[in-house]
């Protein structure tokens, strides 16, 4: 807490400008690259809004605060205090580093001192828990409060667990541990639950999608167990900026929650630049890569001694950027590394080491995925560069917020890739700078997820007839579980009746189960070097894949699918690999449709088969394609919900001289619609999938290696569209989770907007024949097609619009 620190008065900035390296960097970048900067925002430094410490605050606690230099509270901290003391559930959604921690620590410590009340803190990751306990310990030491705070997670040794359960005033854990280790053993925690007064849920914004839906069910279980022990804790939730913190909190805990969103904390001046890479081929609309611009900005910043953080969208891009920057700054192996990568999949010890090095200022540049978006304490940084738009406005601000200090200026740069969303944002800076952040959505009643937690809850306490758990018909779920042989109904109660521990087979992080471990077999040893979640395995760990860790390439030699293991060996390859994805869909059922003649837009359930037939080898630096490899993996299947747009056979024949042209039109339209849909529904692009096919599963369309649309049969063989038996292509946008997470219905509602905005995106694009910013990448040879892929996509979208409006 640095509440006592004030930002400087504005007139002092003049001489700071002389020396402040961040301001100098901004000035120099603007002078040199004026054309690339499409938008700029300066958030002025802000003075704090301070209030006095509450009068009823325990004297020991005020003493502890004073020792730590806190003499006053920020306005939002005081407000949180009052509402929590009043017994309200609250959510605090203020920016990074605004002192959210104190919002919950104060009432919790006060209640512990007053009534020996207990509190449970939940953080999404173990690292955050450890930070938190360190912070509590310091407060505790400052005035000998005598409050015992312990972490309880997978790393807690067996002999310490009993002490945590019986003696801990504050237990700091994570939802996974609550789910697998605490709730199924609640009787051992009886004393804790009886006295549980507060539950703190930090990083609320991470509890969205599948994970959030699981956690909402864990909260249902937690409240059920609390009721058994006669307690009814108050929830204090903290979130980074999202559009709907109160709504998300209310869905998560299923109770009324009041929101605190105005921060009283100060911050230094912030600069934000929107950066569009220069066009290098005007005909094709091809721009220089975001990667080249990101490395350039990072090089300049690091050379000027500014601590920088780079965010990349994928683990692969983290490794590529790390390699390029290490080639510049870490070419002397005898010196400690100045550049490091940080992403999921690294082992925890390695990540902790990087965090420590960052805090100590030993690292000049860190390249990260969203793994560093969370509140992991890495100290203050000067410059944040985003290699590509993260997909959501909330995530963008969160990443940019990683650079920023209380008193000094900081800089964030958003570098656009050639993806349509990125281009839309940098070309319309006023949209981004004025937009509200996204809504975080969860679907706690997603059937599979709900079923998993009904099982876990039945194990914890028998269900009684008439009890509520979720919004589906609980009795039917219980009957289903009885048929599965895990429950037994006796009178009005449903008892767990199986020899198993259901929580162990339910992972909160995915609908699918079972992480893969990556085992390094170099030099005959067998060392686990990484862990990869089930759903990303087909795209990253196929045999032959180059899998990168801290920019060192490893080649996958063997993938043991059943054993969940991938064996890799260090290699010196000068290329990386990128998997090819074939997806075909079959419509199972229509829930709703808007029809006009033989054309329809519909919402329904689809069966999807994804095949990863092979991969491309791409050489570093030149990014040329240097070969292909085959992948032999089982097909991934799922049922999910989708929205599709389909045109009648006759309409097609009228509007397009050839089926090839129609196919290119559909692929281009799908590309644009996919990105617009992500924006419209405020989802992340990877939450939605797209496909073009006949909806019968007999054929599907892909963009072939030469940039042209291809038709492939169910078994993946190329077909000639002119000879396809029934040529009636459809654009599918589907919910990318088994069973669906409730994304398709909102898309169907907005079907007219999606088509209209996609048409606008394509029409307004500055390219001639089509480009990655509108209909997807096309190749130079496309000029020789005799038609423009861009025009074909516009024709398809035009036909969709016509049918929408009738």
């Amino acid at each position, binding site marked *: 807490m640095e509440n006592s620190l004030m930002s400087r008065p504005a007139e002092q900035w003049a001489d700071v400008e002389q020396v402040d390296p961040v301001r100098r960097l901004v000035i120099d970048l603007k002078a040199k690259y004026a054309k690339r900067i499409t938008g700029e925002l300066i958030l002025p430094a802000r003075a704090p809004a301070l209030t006095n410490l509450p009068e009823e605050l325990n004297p020991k606690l005020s003493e502890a605060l004073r020792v730590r230099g806190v003499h006053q509270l920020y306005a939002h901290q005081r407000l949180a205090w009052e509402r929590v003391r009043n017994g309200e559930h609250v959510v605090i959604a203020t920016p990074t580093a605004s002192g959210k921690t104190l919002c919950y620590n104060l009432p919790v410590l006060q209640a512990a001192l007053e009534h020996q009340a207990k509190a449970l803190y939940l953080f999404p990751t173990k690292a955050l828990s450890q930070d938190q306990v360190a912070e509590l310990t310091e407060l505790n030491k400052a005035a000998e409060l005598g409050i015992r705070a312990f972490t309880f997670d997978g790393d807690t040794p067996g002999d310490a667990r009993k002490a945590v359960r019986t003696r801990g005033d504050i237990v700091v854990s994570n939802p996974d541990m609550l789910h697998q280790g605490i709730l*199924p*053993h*609640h*009787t*051992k925690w*009886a004393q804790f639950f009886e006295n549980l007064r507060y539950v703190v849920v930090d990083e609320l914004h991470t509890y969205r999608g599948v994970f959030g839906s699981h956690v909402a069910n864990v909260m249902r279980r937690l409240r059920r167990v609390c009721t058994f022990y006669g307690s009814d804790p108050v929830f204090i939730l903290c979130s980074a900026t999202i559009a709907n913190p109160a709504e998300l909190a209310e869905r998560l805990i299923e109770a009324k929650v009041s929101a605190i969103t105005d921060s009283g904390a100060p911050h230094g001046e912030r600069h934000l630049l929107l950066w569009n890479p220069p066009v290098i081929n005007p005909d094709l609309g091809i721009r220089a890569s975001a990667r080249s611009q990101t490395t350039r900005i990072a090089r300049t910043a690091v050379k000027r001694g500014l601590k920088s953080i780079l965010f990349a969208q994928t683990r692969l891009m983290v490794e590529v950027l790390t390699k390029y920057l290490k080639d510049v700054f870490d070419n002397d192996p005898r010196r400690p590394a100045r550049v490091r990568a940080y992403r999921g999949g690294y082992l925890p010890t390695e990540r902790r080491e990087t965090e420590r090095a960052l805090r100590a200022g030993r690292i000049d540049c860190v390249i990260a995925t969203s793994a560093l978006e969370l509140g992991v304490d890495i100290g203050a940084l000067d410059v944040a560069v985003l290699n590509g738009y993260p997909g959501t406005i909330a995530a963008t601000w969160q990443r940019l917020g990683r650079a920023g200090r209380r008193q000094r200026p900081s800089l964030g740069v958003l570098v656009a890739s050639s993806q349509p969303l990125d281009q839309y944002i940098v070309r319309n800076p006023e949209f981004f700078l004025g937009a509200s952040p996204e809504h975080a959505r969860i679907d706690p009643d997603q*059937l*599979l997820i709900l*079923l998993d937690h009904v099982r876990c809850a*039945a*194990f*914890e*306490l*028998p269900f009684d007839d008439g009890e509520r758990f979720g919004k*589906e*018909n609980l009795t*039917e*779920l219980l*009957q*289903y579980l009885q*048929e*599965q*042989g895990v429950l*037994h109904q*006796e*009178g009005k*109660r449903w*008892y*767990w*009746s*199986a*020899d*198993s*521990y*259901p*929580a162990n087979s339910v992972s909160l992080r995915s*609908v*699918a*189960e*079972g992480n893969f471990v990556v085992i390094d077999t170099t030099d005959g040893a067998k060392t686990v070097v990484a862990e990869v979640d*089930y759903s990303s395995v087909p795209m990253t760990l196929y045999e032959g894949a180059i899998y990168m860790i801290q920019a060192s390439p490893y080649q996958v030699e063997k993938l043991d*699918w*059943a054993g969940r293991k991938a064996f890799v060996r260090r290699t010196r390859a000068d290329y990386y690999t990128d998997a090819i994805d074939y997806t075909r869909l079959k419509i199972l059922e229509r829930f709703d449709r808007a029809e006009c003649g033989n054309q329809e837009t519909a919402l329904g359930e689809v069966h999807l088969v994804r095949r990863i037939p092979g991969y491309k080898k791409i050489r570093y630096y030149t990014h040329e394609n240097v070969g292909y490899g085959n992948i032999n993996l*089982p097909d991934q*299947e*799922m*049922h999910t919900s989708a929205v599709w747009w389909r045109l009648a056979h006759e309409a097609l024949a009228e509007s397009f001289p050839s089926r090839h042209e129609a196919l290119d039109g559909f692929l281009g339209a799908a590309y644009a619609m996919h990105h617009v849909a992500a924006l419209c529904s405020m989802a992340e692009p990877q939450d939605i999938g797209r496909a073009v096919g006949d909806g019968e599963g007999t054929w599907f369309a892909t963009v072939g290696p030469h940039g042209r649309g291809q038709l492939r049969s169910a078994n993946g063989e190329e077909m000639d569209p002119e000879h396809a038996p029934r040529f009636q292509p459809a654009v599918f946008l589907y919910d990318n989770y*088994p*069973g669906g997470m409730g994304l398709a219905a909102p898309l169907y509602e907005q079907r007219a907007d999606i088509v209209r905005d996609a048409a606008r995106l394509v029409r307004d694009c500055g390219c001639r024949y089509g480009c990655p910013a509108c209909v997807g990448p096309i190749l130079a040879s496309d000029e020789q097609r005799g038609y423009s892929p861009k025009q074909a996509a516009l024709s398809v979208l035009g036909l969709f619009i016509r049918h929408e409006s009738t």
Partner: protein
Amino acid sequence: MSQLRQRLSALRQQSGAQAAAGVPPPIAERIRRARIGHKRPPDNDPSDLAATLAQAVGGEAIGPGVLRITTQVPLRSNHGDWCLHALLHSPRSLPAAIDVAANGLLFFDTETTGLAGGSGTLAFMVGFAAIRGDCLRVDQYLLSSFAGESAMLRALCEHTSSAQHLVSFNGKCFDAPLMATRARLNGVTLGFDDLAHIDLLYPLRTAFASRWPDCRLASAEARLLGFVRCDDLPGAEAPQAWFDYVHRGDVEALARVVEHNRWDLVSLAALLPALDRTFAEPHRYGADVGAVARAHLRRGQTHRAQQLLDTDGAWQSESACLALAASLRRDGDLDGALRLWKRLTRQGSARAAEYLAKYYEHVERDYIRALQLTQRLPEGPTRHARAQRLRRKMKPQGIRVRVAQLD
């Protein structure tokens, strides 16, 4: 209903292990599931079912959903090579049980719905055995329905209130915490906490861990008690027996669980005097003498350890002898300690030689002898430092020694 079921089964196929492995569950599994669906008697009157069960196991209903099976085993009867009569004499040698009164013993064993632990694991059967007159009286409580648990737990309290010692096999880690969970869930106070708990697994391990391949109760029966069960239902099949009863009304396997549990209790009762004898005369029963002696030492029974170790030249018990010597020295019996160290040193123990060297250096100040002993220590910096120091100490006294002379 059917629609929800279809949605569920379709969804579950895509989300994990099953689809990934690419194989359907084994036929037996599918059949078993199918049978649950078809043969489950939902319309059976629960009281009819309980009556059938009571008849099959020879028990009486003591409340809704709970049966009690009572058996009297005469103390003069044999269990394997041991007569249960030995129970009447208070243990004299088993450290955890010395002088406990025979009529305060409560032998205890449960049968559960699994080993997973957590609040979903249930003890569907709890058995007690205690001495009543000239018999061992075995009382087994069996749930005939889930709803009977609370009544069963209350019935258990009658037994705990009249006992002083709970005797179990692995009960400290498994049965007792499980019962605590069940009691907490049902809001019943069992009174287990007021009883001293003697878990026979620990002394059995002490005595035989280095001698037997495992220390399960079955091994103790075969190797120590000389008792062989005929047609016993393996304990691991107990959960399925209970589920077969619950789901399908099968009582046969459950009746065998009752038998199994009764044997467990009687073996437990026989094991207590048998272990007591083992701790008195470990050689006689093939136990680990050193480990037994160490156990006596931990309990402050130095003289017992001395009896076991100071009589023969059992080299395998080096660490036990050293522990004994340390204990003797603490008690002021330096001669006893020296005798042990010397014997061990003769037998080649470097650790004993080190103790002796320290003794000669610091107590006797006999540096020559200390240096001699130092030569028996393993090569290394410790040995080198000690020798250097001893040479330094000898100099002012004008003693010059060449090591070769000593050897």
